[in-house]
Every structure is written in structure tokens, then in C-alpha cells.
């Protein structure tokens, strides 16, 4: 289970110290202010105090309550700064991992074509994440490590950390990036070095063979945000092995069964709301009439027919 508020990286201590100082100050002031208000309301209430005093200022007090908060905020600034500055000083020996954010998933590239969906890192090793975006702004956020940096197209942003405890932690995307922004999550798994080396060695090199042109089109048009190719249901039905199967659809409010042939798949892409798959909502998928050329759709159909995500 994920630990929620214990720091799991070397950077956590500095950040938490700043939190504690600010919250402690806030707490003291808030208590003081509330106490003073209650005192005033009781002691100077109109029932008790019928002759208000008429003073209207006091230079000494003004100076005190300008200088004291000033000193306090300078201390806050100081803690914030020292907590932050190590985040920008990457140790030279840091291991480099490329994090690729795209709508709406994370890919972690360990080099040599080894790409993983989860971030696996060795305990007590410095890790530098180089952040790349394939489309819009994202942001890589690992709460347990107290790190976050935006992933912006055209920018070489980075962050680094050294995990100091083993476990599995959340990764969130914290820059709004469209429909499935809240689904753009992943995990960090901190393991010890040996285990890490073994895991990396076993990590399959991403298939480098030529991709089916239909699949490329499917990827390029973000179909995969709503449709999986592995059987899981996302926003739309999974398209795994769809070709030739029987589908229960609702046409004009009547249920019927159709076979997913060329015709049906084309219709689903060009006029998705004509046959709405049972259990799914109408109107989510928009027609791709404007976006996809006829030959592209043929390629998609061919992909389902031949490769079809069969395995």
C-alpha cells in the first residue's frame, strides 16, 4: 500500500521543514486572531461597553505589525529556498530516464529501446528524469518524493530525486491535458539495486518491427484513449479481436445483433451514433468523417481484419 505522507526521497525533508514552519506560524496567528476576536466580542460588546474609545492609530504598533510579519515571511522564504535549491542541482552520477508524457499515458524510456509503463527505480540511486511531451502540457508529479515538474512540448524540463525507501508510490499528471487527464497515472516502484538490474535486463525491447499502418493511424488519432487493444474497457468498448465477432448494438432505440464486418467498422467510425454498442453512451465518440481519409479507414479495417490485436 502506498504511504501517503511520509517522504520517500532525499528531497522530502527540506520540503517538509518548510511546510512545518509555515503551518506552525499560520496556526499560531490563527489561534491568536480568533482568540482576540472572541475577546473583543465578549469584552467590548455593545451591551457591556456603551462608550467606545476614540483612538485612531498608533505608530509603534504599526511598525511592530509590519516588521514582525516581514521577518516571519523572510524566514518562510528562506526555508522555501533551501528546500527547493537542491531540486535544481542534479548530481553528476545520476541515472538518466526519459519520461514521455502523451495524451494520456506515461512512458519511461530507459534507453536502448527499453520502455516501461511504470517507473521502476533502484533504492538510493540518484535518478534524473528528462521530461518530454509528445503533444500538450503535462506534469510529472510524485507526491511521496515531493517532486513535480511540467512536461512541456519544446522544453527540456527535468527533475531528479533519490528514493530512500522501498515501496510503490503514485505518479499523477498534474497539468490539465484534456479528456482523460485524471486517468494519466502510473506507479513508481522502488526496489533494491539487484532487483532493479534484473528487472531492467528482463524489460522487453519495444517492438521495432514495422508497425501495421492501420495501427499507426489508430495511435495517431488518439483512438486508444477510449479504446484498448487488450480487452479492458475504458470509455469505449475494447477493440481487441473485434473483427468478425457478434456485437449487440442499439439502433434507433431497438436492440439488435450485428457482425463486426468491414461495413460495420466503417460505420462505427464515420457515424458512431448510428449503432451504439450496448452498455455505452451515445455521443461520446464523434464522427471521424472530417478527420480520416477513406483510405485511412480502409487501413484501420484491414488492421482489425489481419492483425486485429488478436493476441
Amino acid at each position, binding site marked *: 500500500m502506498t504511504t*501517503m505522507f511520509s517522504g520517500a526521497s532525499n528531497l522530502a525533508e527540506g*520540503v517538509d521543514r*518548510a*511546510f512545518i514552519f*509555515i503551518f506552525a506560524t*499560520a496556526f499560531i*496567528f*490563527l489561534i491568536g*486572531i480568533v482568540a482576540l*476576536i472572541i475577546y473583543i*466580542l465578549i469584552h*467590548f*460588546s455593545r451591551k457591556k*461597553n*456603551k*462608550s*467606545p*474609545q*476614540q*483612538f*485612531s*492609530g*498608533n505608530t509603534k*504598533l*504599526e511598525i511592530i*505589525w*509590519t516588521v514582525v510579519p516581514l521577518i516571519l*515571511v523572510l524566514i518562510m*522564504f528562506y*526555508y*522555501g529556498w*533551501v*528546500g*527547493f*535549491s537542491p*531540486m535544481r542541482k542534479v548530481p553528476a552520477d545520476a541515472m538518466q530516464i526519459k519520461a514521455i508524457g502523451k495524451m494520456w499515458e506515461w512512458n519511461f524510456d530507459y534507453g536502448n529501446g527499453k520502455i516501461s509503463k511504470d517507473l521502476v527505480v533502484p533504492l538510493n540511486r540518484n535518478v534524473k528524469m528528462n521530461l518530454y511531451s509528445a*503533444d500538450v*502540457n503535462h506534469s510529472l508529479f510524485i*507526491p*511521496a518524493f515531493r517532486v*513535480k*515538474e*511540467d512536461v*512541456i*512540448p*519544446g*522544453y527540456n524540463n527535468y527533475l531528479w530525486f533519490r528514493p530512500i525507501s522501498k515501496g510503490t508510490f503514485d505518479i499523477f499528471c*498534474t*497539468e*490539465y*491535458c*484534456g*479528456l*482523460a*487527464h*485524471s*486517468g494519466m497515472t502510473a506507479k513508481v516502484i522502488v526496489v533494491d539495486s539487484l532487483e532493479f538490474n534484473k528487472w531492467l535486463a528482463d524489460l522487453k525491447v519495444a517492438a521495432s518491427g514495422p508497425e501495421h499502418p492501420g495501427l499507426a493511424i489508430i495511435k495517431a488519432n488518439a483512438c486508444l484513449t477510449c479504446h484498448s487493444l487488450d480487452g479492458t474497457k475504458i*470509455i469505449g468498448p475494447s477493440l481487441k479481436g473485434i473483427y468478425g465477432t457478434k456485437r449487440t448494438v442499439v439502433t434507433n432505440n431497438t436492440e439488435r445483433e450485428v457482425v463486426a464486418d468491414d461495413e460495420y467498422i466503417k460505420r462505427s467510425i464515420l457515424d458512431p451514433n448510428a449503432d451504439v454498442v450496448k452498455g455505452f*453512451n451515445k455521443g*461520446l465518440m464523434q464522427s471521424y468523417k472530417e478527420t480520416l481519409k477513406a483510405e485511412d479507414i480502409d487501413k484501420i479495417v484491414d488492421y482489425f481484419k489481419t492483425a486485429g490485436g488478436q493476441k
Partner: protein
Amino acid sequence: MNNPSPTAPLNFLNHKTGLWSWLSSTDHKRIGLLYLYAITTFFLSAAVLGLLMKIEKVAPGETIMTAQTYNAMFTLHGIIMIFIVVIPGLAAVFGNIMLPIMIGAKDVAFPKLNLFSFYVYITGACLGLYSQFAHGHSPDTGWTFYVPYSAEASSNVVIALTAAFTLGFASILTGLNFIVTIHRMRAPGMTWFRMPLFPWSLYATAWIQLLATPVVGITLLMVIAERTLHIGFFDPALGGDPVLYQHLFWIYSHPAVYVMILPAMGVVTEIFPTFSQKPVFGYLPIVFSSLAIALVGYFVWGHHMFTSGMSYESRWFFSFLTFLVAIPSAIKVFNWLSTMYGGSVDLQPPLLYAISFIFLFTIGGFTGLTLGSVATDIQVHNTDFVVAHFHYIIFGGMGFGFFAGMHYWYPKIYGRMYNIRWANIGWGILFTGFNLLYFPMFIMGIQGMPRRYFDYDPKFQLGQTISTIGAIILFTGLITMISNLIYHVRRGAIAPANPWHGVTLEWQIPSPPPHENFDEIPVITRDPYVFDNPYTK
């Protein structure tokens, strides 16, 4: 709008009747009321969206709406609340109604321009709504319109941008009008430092409206150009710079948050002396802190971009300035407390709201400091912590300030009194619901719950559910408060000219004020807050 009873003396509400006399009036008080009705309507509709979002989040997964709807919803909620409700908000309503009276003038400097800017505002607001219902998707970019997403999203972003642009224009015109009014129309003898503090806060606000709004105007135009002409200032594929957009956006939008809060500070600054029957403590420090907030507020915009990949130097620089801008706010809080200290404090609804303003604003302000510190902002940026921060400070600050002003000036504006008991009850429900709704979001934010999330990890379930319950309580409170006010506009007891024993000029004329405010322009001979006949029962 208000039935003129046969015996009632002529006042601005009844000296002319008929809808057209309202829609074409250049009387600042009527324009202020038009704004009030428009803004209340928009506020309620956007608030309902907020409630719906909370209901969606009562449990993880999809409950009452899809992700697309949720995203469109927080976008519309944010756009309406920021651009249509809180930025014009207090200045357009109470500024319009009270500013000329408080400085002893018969109207603002450019009454026709004032009416014109109201219609610009309405046009912008309608465009904003239209973007929702026009053919195609509702915009789903968030109120910040960050590129490249806003340049690519297939929704009606251009209409929404045009709406924001138009609303900005209305805001500029209002600001312009107020600056000139304050410079040129003060009653004889009212020197700058004899001016009450609400006009002072409006003066500081107006400068921000005037000088910051055009920047966002041109920025939004650039995004429109980007979408329609494909120029690509912000599109990395064409060599543009997405972070530059963020700079331009926040150069406006940070100062804009002070457009929201400064008039609210002005309102409570009027309320504390009246209900303590005691001069304001530290008049000059309050004046200069308003000006300081307005000025320094221009230079801290980068604190919204601490994680955007800005240079290291600018990150700590902006952090430093952010802390400095907190000092004038601190000065104000302490001066308000000292104003009450030693007074004869009468805990009427306006004061109740003003005191809750201090409480909620302090929480919002201190969490603002948490966000201003770079190290901690890294953790809580774009999480529910930020959402809680700005709801505390906007709703708890500006919102409660607005309610305070509403309860304070209500008898003046309508010449009638609301039910005090129900006002207190409404406040109690509102205040409880408010804290239940937003406080858990601080905790979830620190734990890492990101904002603009349709769905969430089940470990946040408890906090989210409490928060939803809070939203429902808050909803009840709002209904109670608003129905009390609406009901008594016509049926309330007739209010005297000066029910709270205030000393500023608006209390020296009949309620409701006559059409031209003053039969004779008053000559001012002393400071604004002199209570020489201490009120004793």
C-alpha cells in the same frame, strides 16, 4: 422593480418606472443594481455547477456525469466565477452604487460610458454562455486556457476567448470611469485623505483593471490568431513558446486576484468602524497598504509557474516578491482588529460576515504563503490545495465581503430591512458548510490529490465525501441567506436613513437615495470616520 407606495418620497428606485427606464438609465445606482441582478444570476448558475462537480466526486469513478462533462463544467464554472462574477463583482455593484455617494458626487464622471460598459459586460457574459451551447463541444480548457491544449482542443474555445476579451473590455471601462471620478468629482473639501476607505480601495483596484486587463486581452487575441490563422506564437511545432503564454496570462491574472479582493477589503473596512462606533484604526496604513498591494501585485505573477521550467533565478525571485505582497494584507488584518478593540461592538449580520471574512481570508492567505514558498509549492501546485486556497480567499474573502456589503448597504439601497434572525441563521449554515467543503481539500491536496481530476484514487474517498456534504450544507445556507434578502426587498420593515449609525456620506441622505443623491453637494470639513455622538442605548 420596486412598487412605489403612494406615500413614499421619490427616490432613485421609483422616480421613473418601467423596464426601459432601468435598461436605459445612466444613474450610477440603477446601473449598480443591474449589475447586482446580472451577477447574482450568474453566480447562482456557476455555483450550481460547483455543486454538481462535488456530487460527481462523492465517490470514485463515474457517478453523475462523464469526464467530458466534468471538464467542461469546471471550465465554465471558472470562467463565470472569475470573469463574470468576481472580477466585476464588488466594484461594479457596490462601487457603482456607493462610490459617487461616498465622495459626495451626483454621479460618476462618465455616466454614459458606465451604461455602455454594462452592455459590453452583458454581451461578454452572453458570449460566455453561448460558447457552451453553440454547435460543437463546450470548451474544456480550464479558465486558464493554457496552450497548446487550448490551441488544439476541438471545442468552442474561440467563442470563450472572445467572451473573456469582451468582459475584460468592460472591466477596463469601469476602472477608467472610477479613476477619473475619484480624481475629479470629490466634493469640495474632501481631500485625498478625507476620502473614506472603500473609495480608496476602488481607486487601487481601478488601476489594476486599467493596466493589467489589456495584457490578457492581447494574449487571448493571440490565441485566437493561433487557432484561426495558425501563426504559432505559442505552438512549439512552429517555434512558439508555451511558457510565454503562461507569463502573459498571469501578468494579468495575478493582479486580477487583487481586483477581486481589494474592494472586499474596502467593504469590511467600512463595516468595522460603524459597528464599533469607533474611528478606523490606522487610516493611512490602510490606504498605503491598498496601494502597495496593487503595485507589488504586478510583479509576482511567476508564482503560478514555479513548476513550468522557468529559470532557477526567476523562481526564487518571484517567491521573494510573493512574500512581500503578503505584508500589506497583514497590516490590514491587524488594523481591522484594532479598530474593533475598545469599541462598542454590535454583532449584527454585516459584522458577522466581516469577521468571518478575517478568519477565512487569513486561512486563505496563509495557504497562499504555502504556495508562495517554492519548495512547498512544488508539492501542492495544481492540487486540491490550490483549489482550497482560492476558494477560501475568493469565496471566503471576496464572497463573504460581498455578503457583508449586501447586508450593510441593503437598508440604504432598498429602504427596507431584512430579517436579522434569519440572516444570522443563514450565516451559520453558510459558514459551517463552507469549512466542511473546502478544508478537507487542503489535506487531500498535500497528500497529492491533483485538481481538475474527474476521477480519483479511492484513498481520497473520505475527504471527498466530507467535502460533498459540506457543499450541500453550503447550498442550504446560501438559499437561506438569499431568500431572506429577496423576500424583504418588498416586504421588509421600512428602514431608517441610518440604521447602523454610520458616519460616511451615504448614511447622511435618505434611504433609498434620491435620484441625484444630494440636493446640495456637501462641503467636507473633517476626517471620514469621526463618531462624535457615541451611540449608546
